[in-house]
């Protein structure tokens, strides 16, 4: 019996399902980032592709990615109504994709940790959207 005792590991789904099952990057090249989660990848795709105004939400995420920005600046750069931006921001905060900083007036928004870990999913989606 003790023969097997050394080979037991904590159970993980990645032992059955390969981690890059939704990833079309060649895994042999080692391009996949270690913190990337395939489940989150699917969720982000569905949030953006499966909801009304999801493409504007992707644009907001892409804008926030490098520099934290406030709602007014987002509205002017994306040429959208201030109220729509506030609605999108509310939904994105509910999904825990963006964070609000402590300030109340003119608060800036930035990506949460899970979103920062999975940034190349967003890059891929933005490439598909293009400049249309």
């Amino acid at each position, binding site marked *: 019996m003790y023969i097997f005792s050394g080979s037991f590991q904590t159970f993980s789904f990645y032992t059955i399902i390969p981690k890059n099952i939704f990833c079309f990057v060649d895994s042999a090249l080692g391009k996949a980032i270690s913190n990337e989660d395939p489940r989150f990848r699917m969720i982000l*795709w*569905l949030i*953006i*592709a*499966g*909801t*009304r105004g*999801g*493409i504007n939400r992707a644009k907001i995420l892409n804008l926030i990615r490098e520099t934290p920005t406030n709602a007014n600046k987002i509205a002017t750069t994306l040429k959208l109504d201030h109220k729509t931006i506030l609605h999108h921001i509310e*939904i994105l905060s509910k999904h825990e994709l963006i964070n609000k900083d402590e300030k109340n007036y003119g608060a800036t928004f930035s990506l949460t940790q899970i979103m920062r870990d999975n940034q190349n999913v967003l890059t891929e*989606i933005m490439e*598909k*959207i293009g400049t*249309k």
Partner: protein
Amino acid sequence: MIDFMIAAVIAALVNIGLLIITITTYVQNMRLLRSYLTLGLVLVAVLLLIQNVVIVIFWSTLYMQSSELMKSADMVAHYLFVINIIQTIGLVILVWITRR
């Protein structure tokens, strides 16, 4: 007594309306974001739409025309009603998620 066949058809018509709402949302997204996922969402919604259209066609042609089929269909109509009303509940949740 409720006529289950008519209730089932009403539920199917509601389903068609809800599916048209989801399909328009998905197609609007597909125009900007072309990928296998958006295409798949549209395809699934269209197939569900076809299913509900077939139910309405079945009711309006086959069911109305022959009285023999009407009797046998009435015996299973409550099952059809349950199937459709569950689908309606599911689609209401889907529409609420997509249109938020």
